[in-house]
């Protein structure tokens, strides 16, 4: 799950990473009051879970309270790359001498935490890497050793950070490492990490990603996840314990196993159609899980047909067929449903579905073609 700037900064402040004074406003009046409180120049920043806010006009400076009211009025209610802005962060805008980039993330290939530091902060790390690859400095950590002072000095020297900033940088680096470990954050990013004219290093923007697998031990963060701005169908599916991703097509897809379902989506596209969703019911197709899956998929108004693609391994296809029949008996199905059963006892399974409203298919290809044709009819 991704945390937005204000959530990340709250955690920064809690752990002692310097952030500018500021608060969340939901109305222009609140923005004015906060600007008044802070005094001087303020930044008004859209709080949406996506990058590129500045370019989209979601971040503006204001000289004083009245201007803060005015820019907040413009930003609140605007749409930043598909996300409506409901809240803005109003915070002190100091005068910036230099912008750095600092993050800790997980390097899948090296199977380690990696620190990234750059003196070309302020733009996306992908952009820095493309434009100034020599300015991206990395340091991989050994989980047993952890982060040591010499690591930070090494990183700072290679990135060209002046020596007088080392103590501040070291404190901040240690704290984001601590956040990565204590909050199970797979990304903690400060960009820009700004050196202000008074010499202080301050986190002007923050981004965090929390490992979903660790939410069982991150109770406070798990509550934020509940309120996350996913598609309503994704939220509903998550409640039912299903792995569901909303897509922009019209063929509903249900299958067992992530790879199998992804391949089903690919086959639908090859057959000239577009999938409405990804839904993995996992191993062992119990009737209750199939029912939950069908309910979620059928509640999507975009769905014009459904393809159920199951490979019976340990689970036998005849059992899956019986489960399906029980569900179909008790549900009102408004669209054609194509079922492909393969693997253990597939013949028996297919026989059981003969003469029902379900459309059987023998192969992956046939199933995708039938589901696409049914949707376009």
């Amino acid at each position, binding site marked *: 799950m991704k945390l937005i700037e204000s959530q990340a900064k709250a955690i920064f402040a809690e752990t002692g990473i310097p952030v500018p004074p500021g608060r969340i406003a939901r109305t222009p009046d609140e923005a004015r009051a906060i600007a008044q409180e802070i005094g001087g120049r303020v930044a008004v920043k859209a709080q949406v879970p996506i990058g590129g806010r500045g370019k989209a006009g979601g971040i503006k400076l204001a000289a004083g309270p009245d201007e803060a009211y005015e820019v907040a009025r413009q930003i609140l209610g605007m749409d930043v790359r598909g996300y409506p802005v409901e809240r803005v962060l109003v915070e002190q805008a100091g005068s910036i001498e230099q912008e750095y980039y600092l993050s800790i993330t997980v390097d899948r290939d090296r199977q380690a935490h990696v620190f990234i530091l750059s003196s070309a902060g302020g733009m996306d790390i992908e952009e820095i890497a493309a434009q100034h690859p020599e300015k991206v400095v990395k340091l991989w950590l050994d989980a047993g050793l952890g982060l040591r002072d010499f690591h930070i000095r090494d990183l700072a020297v290679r990135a060209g950070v002046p020596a007088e900033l080392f103590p501040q940088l070291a404190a901040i680096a240690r704290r984001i490492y601590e956040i990565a470990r204590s909050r199970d954050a797979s990304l903690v990013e400060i960009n820009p990490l700004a050196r202000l004219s008074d010499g202080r290093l301050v986190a002007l923007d923050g981004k965090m990603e929390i490992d979903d697998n660790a939410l069982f031990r991150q109770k406070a963060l798990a509550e934020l996840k509940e309120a996350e701005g996913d598609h309503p169908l994704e939220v509903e599916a998550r409640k039912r314990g299903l792995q569901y991703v909303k897509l922009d097509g019209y063929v509903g897809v249900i299958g067992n196993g992530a790879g*199998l379902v992804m391949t089903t989506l690919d086959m*639908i596209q090859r057959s000239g159609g577009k999938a409405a969703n990804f839904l993995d019911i996992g191993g062992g197709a119990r009737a209750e899980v199939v029912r939950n899956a069908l309910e979620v998929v059928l509640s999507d108004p975009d769905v014009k047909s459904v393809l159920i693609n199951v490979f019976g391994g340990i689970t036998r296809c005849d059992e899956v067929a019986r489960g399906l029949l029980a569900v179909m008996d008790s549900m009102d199905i408004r669209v054609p449903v194509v079922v492909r059963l393969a693997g253990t006892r597939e013949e028996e399974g297919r026989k059981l579905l003969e003469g029902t409203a379900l459309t059987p298919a023998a192969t992956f290809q046939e199933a995708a073609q039938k589901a696409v044709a049914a949707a376009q009819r």
Partner: protein
Amino acid sequence: MSILVDGNTRLIVQGITGREGQFHTSQMMAYGTNVVAGVTPGKGGQEVLGVPVFDTVREAVRATDANTSIIFVPAPFAAEAVLEAAEAGVDLIVCITEGIPVQDMIETVQYVRRQGVRLIGPNCPGLISAGQALVGILPGRIFTPGPVGLVSRSGTLTYEVVNELSSRGIGQSTCVGIGGDPIIGTRFVDVLRMFEADPDTEVVVMIGEIGGSDEEEAAEYIKEMRTPVVSFISGRTAPPGKRMGHAGAIISGGRGTAQSKVEALEAAGVPVAATITEIADKVAEALGR
């Protein structure tokens, strides 16, 4: 022959008293795997399906001379179970558990690598050497002994491919599910090396998916291989930034796309199949059938 598991495998099941652990122990035993011990803390002295249960892996190894362990322990405790097995001195650990925090796996993978212990998984279906030993949750009945080695990030997709191969009379040497997580103990290139050294594996099927760059790294190694490799990549139509079921199946920051993997593999001379049936066609071709 085969890789990693065979008739000499002496297996411990960690979490043998749980529902999953017990069910799959019965399946593995039915396939002929030599299950010598189970481990569940606090349940030492019991028996499950005639297999003695111990409180610790060390006791189990001492008493039974086990060399392999399979883990069916819930996610919050699974990384510790891997570490315990590594310290107890088994050579091969297979972790089935899904949903282990990334941070736990970073520590665990770095540790087992230093110890020289081979870890398969987590979030994987395990592995099978057809006709010899099943160490995992794969449906044994669809596998037939033969010359094709298979390595995959996806369980059910493996079964699909094996089913298709077996139905055409093409058997398998060993099939390894390396798991769908971002941090895993054994990657494509590790298994490819083992297949390359196995005289009985004549063709390798590699089933990849979006996320990370394991397939690209494998493509580099395949250039040096003598054994032909056939590949398949799922997730060609997956949108960026969305996790497609597997924790590791995500395109992020423009990296990990199916296109990048297909291009890398094709550049290494690997035929990349567009459909499951095409995988079997290309395998048959590579075998000269």
